[in-house]
Each structure stands twice: as C-alpha cells, then as structure tokens.
C-alpha cells in the first residue's frame, strides 16, 4: 500500500474546511494539531476548553506576556488579537448553544451512520474518560472526526454496525483519516478524497462499512486559501444601516434595566424611524424611565421603549416590569394594553434572565422554584425535586437583539460599564442577529482579554453611538 498521511497533513486537510469568521472547537489528540496549521492572524477563532477563545500556538520569543493559557492537549498556548479568556461553563454554553461552527474530535471509532465512540481502554471496561468529546460531538454545527483509518491491529476504525453504547449519535459530518476523506450523507458514507497513490478499492479494503464510490475521486491536496480571506467586518456606519433586515413581525430583545444606562438609544430611535411593525419585544421594562424617571438624572426625559409603542410598532411584550409602579401615572404601554392593542407575557426577572441564558446556551428548558404556586406557574408543569416545588420554564430566543455596550473591538468583543451590563450581556448570545451600540470601537487586541464579558462570537454588528447623540429628549 502507498504511504499514509502524516498527522500534520491530516491537520492541514481539516484546517482547509475552515471559513473566515468561524469559531472552531478542537479536541485533544489529532484535532489539537490543527492549531499548528492555522496561521497566526488567520480569520478564525480556535476554542480550547482550557479557557482560551481565539488561541494560537505561541510564536518564538512570545508567550511570556498575556494570560497563562492551556490548549486542548494541555500545552501552553497564547491568545490572538481576537482572543478572550472563558470559563468551562462558557465553553459548554458556546457549544451547546450552536455558536461553534466546527468541532473537531478524535474518536476511537466512527460508524457509517455518523455515530462515534470516544476514548476508552480495553483494560478497564466500564470506565471511560469522555472529557470533552461528548460535548464537542453534540455541540459543533459541523463535526469533523479525525482518526487513523485502522487500529494498531489493522482492524477498521470506520465500521458499519451501530454501537450499542455511543458517545455521539449521527453527529459526524466529515471523517478525515490517514488515507481518505469521507462524508456522512443520509446515514451512509461517501468517499470524497484519497491520499496520494491510494485507490478507491484500497480504501474500501480497509473500511468496515460500505463506501459509496464518488462521482469524482480527488486526491487529498488541502488548500488554506480561505484562511487568507479577511473575515467579514462587523462595524456598521450607523443605526439605520445595521437594521435594514429587521422585518415586520420580528422578535427583538432590547435592553436597559429600566433607566437610560445600558440602553441602545440610537438603535431604538433607528428602529422607530424604520417603522417596522408587529414586533415582539423582550425586555426588562417596556418603558418606565420617562414615566417615573427611573435611573434618570433629575430634569431629564429619557428615550425608552415607549417610542416604539407610541408609534404602533409593538404587538407583544415579554417583560418583567411592564407598567408604571404608579397606577395613576400609566405608561404608554399600559394604555395600549388596556385598549387591547398589545399582548403581554409577564415573566419574573430572574426567570427572564435564565430563559435568555438558556436560549443562548442550548438549554431547552429548566425547572425553577420562582413562581411555583403562583399565577406565573399556572399552565406550566410543576414538579417536586428534592422536596421543593419547581415549575418548568422554556428557553427564549429572538431574531434580533439591540443592546448597549461600552467598548467593542473590531471583532465584536464587548465590555460594559457598571450596572449597565445587566440584561445586555445575557441577551447577546440568545438572538440570531446581535447588534451592539457602543461608545467606542477600538482595534483588535486593545481590550484586556480577561475583561471581555461578551466575546465577539456572539456579536454580529457594531454601531458607534453618534457623537453628540443624547439619550434624552
């Protein structure tokens, strides 16, 4: 048989799948070697469960500065200019929440249906060390399995039978081995590429599963061209240009705890001027700042959600504090609600935060004690867990999210200011399109990676609040 590919060539083949702007989570073993291929400054972000988002291998003479970081193989890594430090819970949420474009794992075996078996030892049946594999397998939007085509005893690692127990089911999209590249399509394997010198029949003879012959069998010759393309920019010139696709009937998260701090006023005004109708707004309040001066300096009248309600754009609100604290001073929203023009779903504040987090973190539903035995629990499943009453609450997501940050870098990493972090940081991962209004956009690498609250992976568009813009009327 012709020679097999070495590990770095396999890593190169995997790296050729990466597209500009993507987030790529690497497992240990062969996948970790992809980091050796991706050039420093490439327009992708590598994610390690060691807590590094946007990492690279240290360049010579570098690595002494910056946080002390660990790659998936336990080796020391450095952050790129787009990098930030994350905790394990953040890592898991990124994967489960569908924010990782590609995950790459090294399983022990892969089945024709795309099931995988993680690392185990024959010597200790019953004990496994799945570590990150199960999370990577379930979490990457696209999953690449890298593994030797055969085991040391020459038995195939790509097999027909489904495993009685597995570490991932139907999750593998692409298999890269030391002799071939295969795709899992409709539960069956298609041979896409072979190592130089290898034939279709050669590969079939070492594969334990039927392998559909390709229409056009290519030799593995990875190109990293796509890593030379600049990633799409995120900075938009102004509010109106950042929301041109915000459509009638959209669900929109808008924050601000209640006062003018932490509210994306410029985007809010842009949305008012755009006139988009039938909106469902998810927010803490639906405009109380101008009624009771909540969080508003004396003598000022703050712009808030009321401008959308007044303009007839809101069909429904999902909120925690929807009306004025004083019945004698009703808000615009309350008046519209009394006229039957808008719907309201009232949610306790902590439940709203948790439902938003769930939406962004790939948690489908959760049990909370909040609201058990009250009106809020009516119509919801209730359950006693460990002697305490809980109700089931569902995740919340949205089409758009208009939030307020303090500073961003050009890659969308965000820091907030004081109590204006509030729901902003919670909403950012939960919407399909997240648009952030900031005071200032700085260059990549200018924010302290330990301080970044919302990594750029959650941020799609940035708008700088125009100079001289006032959040007050």
């Amino acid at each position, binding site marked *: 048989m012709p020679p097999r590919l070495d590990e770095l060539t396999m890593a190169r083949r995997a790296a050729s799948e990466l597209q500009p702007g993507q987030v790529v989570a690497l497992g240990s073993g062969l996948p970790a070697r992809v980091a050796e291929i991706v050039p420093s400054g490439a327009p992708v972000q590598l994610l390690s469960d060691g807590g590094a988002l946007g990492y690279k291998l240290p360049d010579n003479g570098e690595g002494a500065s910056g946080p002390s970081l660990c790659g998936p193989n336990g080796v020391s890594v450095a952050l790129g200019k787009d990098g930030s430090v994350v905790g394990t819970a953040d890592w898991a949420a990124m994967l489960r929440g569908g924010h990782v474009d590609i995950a790459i794992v090294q399983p022990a075996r892969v089945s024709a249906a795309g099931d995988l078996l993680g690392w185990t030892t024959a010597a200790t049946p019953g004990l496994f060390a799945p570590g990150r594999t199960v999370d990577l397998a379930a979490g990457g939007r696209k999953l690449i399995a890298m593994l030797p085509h055969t085991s040391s005893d020459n038995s195939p690692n790509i097999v027909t039978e489904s495993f009685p127990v597995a570490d991932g089911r139907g999750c593998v999209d692409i298999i890269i081995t030391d002799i071939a590249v295969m795709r899992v399509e409709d539960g069956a394997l298609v041979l896409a590429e072979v190592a130089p010198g290898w034939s279709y029949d050669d590969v079939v003879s070492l594969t334990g599963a039927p392998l559909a012959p390709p229409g056009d069998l290519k030799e593995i010759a990875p190109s990293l061209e796509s890593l030379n393309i600049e990633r799409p920019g995120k900075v938009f010139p102004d509010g109106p240009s950042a929301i041109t696709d915000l459509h009638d009937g959209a669900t929109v998260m808008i924050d601000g*705890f*209640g*006062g*003018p*701090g*932490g509210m994306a006023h410029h985007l809010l005004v842009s949305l008012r001027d755009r006139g988009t109708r039938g909106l469902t707004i998810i927010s*803490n309040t639906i405009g109380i*700042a101008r009624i*009771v*001066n*909540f*969080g*508003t*300096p*004396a003598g000022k009248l703050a712009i808030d959600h009321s401008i959308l309600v007044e303009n007839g754009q809101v069909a429904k609100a999902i909120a*925690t*504090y*929807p*009306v004025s*604290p004083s*019945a004698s001073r009703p808000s615009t929203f*309350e008046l519209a*609600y009394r006229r039957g023009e808008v719907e*309201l779903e*009232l*949610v*306790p*504040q*902590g*439940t*709203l*935060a*948790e439902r*938003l*987090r769930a939406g962004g973190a790939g948690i489908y539903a959760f049990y*909370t*004690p*909040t*609201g*058990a*035995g*009250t*009106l*809020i629990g009516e119509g919801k499943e209730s359950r006693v867990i460990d002697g305490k*009453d809980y109700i089931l609450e569902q995740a919340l997501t949205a089409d758009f999210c208009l939030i307020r940050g*303090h500073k961003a870098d050009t890659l969308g990493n965000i820091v*907030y*200011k*004081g*109590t*204006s*972090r*509030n*729901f*902003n*940081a*919670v909403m950012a991962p939960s919407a399909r399109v997240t648009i952030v209004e900031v005071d200032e956009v700085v260059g990549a690498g200018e924010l302290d990676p330990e301080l970044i*609250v919302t990594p750029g992976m959650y941020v799609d568009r940035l708008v700088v609040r125009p100079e001289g813009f006032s*959040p007050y009327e």
Partner: protein
Amino acid sequence: MVEEKERLPREVVAMRVAKELPDGGFVNLGIGIPTLVSNFIPDGSVVFYHSESGVLNCGPLAEEDEQDIDLINAGGQFLQMVPGMAFFSTVDGFAMIRGGHVDVTVLGAHQVSATGDLANWMLPERGVGNIGGAMDLAAGAKQVIVAMEHTDRSDGPKVVEECSYPITGKGCVSLIVTDLAVMQPTPEGLVLKEVAPGWTVEEVQGLTGAKLIISPDIKEYEL
C-alpha cells in the same frame, strides 16, 4: 379608639428589621421601608448589599452632582462608587438570589398570610402588575423578612389568614415586622412575638386578619 393611637414611624420599623440582619451577611433590600433598613445597621456590624441591577457591595446613594446612569440600584437610584464593589450581569445576579447565596431579603407587601405566603406584586383591581425580582427573591433568598405598615390605607388588615391578592411566593416569609408588631409565620399559625409600645395584644389582634398565637415570651418591640 385604637385608630387614634400612635404607630411606630417607618424608621423604627426599619431599625427593628436591621437587628435581624446577620453580621457579614448578603442582603437585598426592596423598595419602601426596606430601603431605610440600611440606615440602621448596628455599629461594628457589616452587611453587604446585593442589587438586582447587577452590583454587589453597594453603598450609599450618590449626590445629585455625581449621578452616573451606569451606576444604579434596582430602584433606579444612583449609587456612589465604593471600594469592594463587583459588577455582574442579571443572570449572575439572580443565580445569587435563587441559588441561596443571598442571606436575607427585606420586602414590602400588600398582604402576608399566617403561613408566610407573600403578595406584593399586583393589586387585583389594577389587573396588571410588575413582578421584577420579587418572585425570585421570595423563592430564593435564605430568609424573607417583610417590613410594612400593619394595615392598608383604609385600615384593612394586610396580615391575613389567606392572601386574596395574587401571591408572589408560598410560605416564604419568615418574619413580619410592621408598625405595630413583630410576627412569625409558622406551620401552626402566626406567632405574635413583639408589640409596639403602648399597644395591647388585643388591639393588635383587632387590626390583624389572622388569628395570632401569643408567644410565651411576648415582649415590647425590642430595638
């Protein structure tokens, strides 16, 4: 007539509540009388305040010329920057509450029942209300203390056998401090522990909508 007798001022109610706060504990104060509690922490004792606006270890309110819209409490008031503060998102703020990390919350109420049900988010006649963080605090704080007036504006009892208003949480209140009395909801019923100076047990019972169990060591409001 009992109606003419003097009730305790709000500050004294707050002072009585302050005695309940554990030294070094984490405390969340609601709006109204609860907000006043921070003025009466005993000398030599330390309490750390948590606010749902996303800040821990918050201190006094800011002067008017130092108001910063990025530094507010859950009531929308401006805070001073003090050493030892920490900022966090709403999801972390409520993880602190629901996770049992907040030792005490002091809340106002429309009604409290003899078994500790709390109603403080909606008046039925209005038909719509604000929940805010109250339900999470009721469900999550280790201890829920209610600080309020003993009766409503028309002198109807706010301490009742069973809440007629929509409740915020079931059986969550561990202590009720009013301008007339200190009461403790228990599974057996509502125990009257202290009464305001000049008031008799009978007078307090007359303004209370639930049967009071008189504590064997009942005493005058202790400050």
